[in-house]
């Protein structure tokens, strides 16, 4: 009896709460409809990975074919090339891009004088707001056979021009260089925020003890931002498979597919351009599920090392 009474009470309580917030629910309804149509709707469309989808029959009338398309890409040797390329580009970014914003933030933090500091920040953040199309176009012109880099190299060292843009060996370096140019300044903000949270008395005490500024960077600044560095590191690892195709579509050419073609560009060409929708959806499911697993692992690991949860 008491349990029932309590239940009734709770329901009443809940109803009152729902009614009290009715306008809030009304507001939330509009974005929720958006999420259901565009986000969950598109998750629903992934069902075509298990169907022999053709546009005429539509989603419901296309025939189920089970895991045919999953078998297809697992037996596709080219799929492993694009998987490998995706991981390699992530690793290149991790090794060559990841430290740059940290170094930049440590350097900016050493600038005395607010105006100089502001100036450097304003300049280095700017490329983040320049479109990928422009950045890639500039890179293509600068690295072209008649571009400025070749001009300078040929003038100084002699020899002939290198065609950077059509050489598979140069694709990853160029990708990472554009990444550094566009993102490093903006990426340093998070480390600068962490550095401003380091106790300033520590520096004072260290300099009284005769520690040089270099020693202070090593023993105060870097340990101070170590937690943020590890969170960022884990996040980057978690996003291993999520290399965007926005930039690669602009930078790669048929000649550089062997290093440049990644999962999402492959989905774009095979799935969308060749209208092989079911195959594209199957690869997308693979990518989404593994990404989700990686991100969950990264979050767990971040929790373990005592950092606040990522979401």
């Amino acid at each position: 009896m008491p349990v029932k009474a309590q239940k009734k009470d709770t329901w009443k309580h809940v109803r009152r709460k729902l009614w009290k917030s009715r306008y809030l629910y009304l507001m939330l309804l509009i974005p929720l409809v958006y999420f259901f149509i565009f986000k969950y709707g598109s998750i629903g469309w992934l069902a075509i990975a298990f169907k022999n989808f053709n546009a005429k029959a539509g989603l419901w009338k296309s025939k189920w074919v089970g895991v045919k398309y999953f078998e297809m890409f697992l037996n596709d040797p080219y799929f492993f090339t694009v998987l490998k390329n995706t991981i390699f580009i992530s690793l290149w970014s991790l090794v060559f891009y990841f430290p740059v914003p940290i170094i930049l933030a440590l350097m900016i933090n050493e600038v005395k004088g607010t105006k100089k500091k502001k100036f450097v920040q304003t300049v280095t953040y700017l490329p983040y707001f320049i479109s990928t199309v422009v950045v890639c176009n500039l890179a293509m012109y600068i690295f072209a056979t008649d571009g400025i880099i070749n001009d300078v190299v040929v003038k100084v060292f002699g020899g002939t021009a290198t065609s950077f843009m059509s050489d598979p060996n140069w694709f990853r370096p160029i990708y990472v260089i554009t990444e550094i140019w566009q993102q490093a300044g903006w990426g340093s903000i998070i480390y600068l925020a962490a550095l401003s949270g380091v106790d300033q008395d520590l520096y004072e005490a260290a300099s009284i003890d005769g520690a040089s500024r270099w020693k202070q960077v090593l023993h105060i600044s870097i340990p101070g931002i170590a937690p943020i560095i590890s969170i960022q590191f884990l996040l980057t690892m978690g996003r291993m498979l999520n290399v965007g195709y926005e930039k690669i579509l602009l930078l790669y050419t048929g000649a550089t597919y062997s290093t440049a073609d990644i999962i999402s560009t492959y989905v774009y060409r095979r799935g969308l351009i060749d209208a092989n929708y079911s195959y594209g959806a199957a690869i997308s499911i693979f990518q989404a599920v593994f990404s989700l697993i990686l991100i969950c692992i990264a979050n767990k690991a971040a929790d373990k090392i005592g950092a606040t949860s990522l979401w």
Partner: protein
Amino acid sequence: MRENSSKAVKHTKKKKSPGEKVFSAIVAVFLVFACLIVIYPIYYMFICSISDGYAVTRGEIWLYPKGVNLRAYEIALTYQSVMRSFKNSVQYTIVGTLIATIMTALCAYPLSRRELYGRGLFTMIITFTMFFDSGLVANYMVVSSLHLKNTIWALVLPGAVSVWYMIIMRTGFQSIPDALHESAYLDGANDLVIFWKIILPLSKATIATIVLFYAVGIWNAYIPGLLYLDDSAKYPLQLLLRNIVMSSSAAGSSATSVAADTAALGKNIKYAVIFITTLPILVVYPFAQKYFVKGAMVGSVKG
């Protein structure tokens, strides 16, 4: 701030040891170098766009412009598809930013209210979409099944709420003291009135941040146009620019009619188009920078 600068003064008054001097010099050189690397490509495209076309083709331009003239801009601006795409981009950016900001605010405000029953569940439903990307084929299917292809809606609706910006906005709303709500409730105001009359006016900085992020994002995007537009008269500027440049490079496998038209354009004219594309960003950036940084800070702390 004031404390910091007084410390800095103290610092400079102290005699510097040789080691300190070397350290400062290395920092200065590194940062000057970083700034030059950032500025040079932008400067380079600008001087190329105002230089004599032949000098650009011969690769003579690298420090200063030669034969300064604005012909490239005249040609670029009389070129029909450039003007058309510029107008398209302005339209997409205004409509898209408006829709996205309204939708994001409608999502962020209820989720910022602690008394909202089921808040945790709603938050989970929404943030899950951030970590599960169903990929471009599925997104394409949604857009084409709703018959949005070749309309402005294909460009502005699919990305209407960014979960990330929603979290930034929610954090902004949450920083407004609860007491204001309480007293407004007592005065008989409902949540819609409170949102409109109290929360929005107090959140101008947050809203400005989000508006700027969305506007820059939509202005700079080319992927939605590439996926969802077949009609080149509807292309946004970024997509047009991509096709112009692609047409002259080895990657011109996807040559379109626009691309073919513009293949004959001189290099300096292409630089002029690139510059026209970037100009709105360069104009807005100095004023908008502090909002952007504020947004990034909130994102990094609360995210």
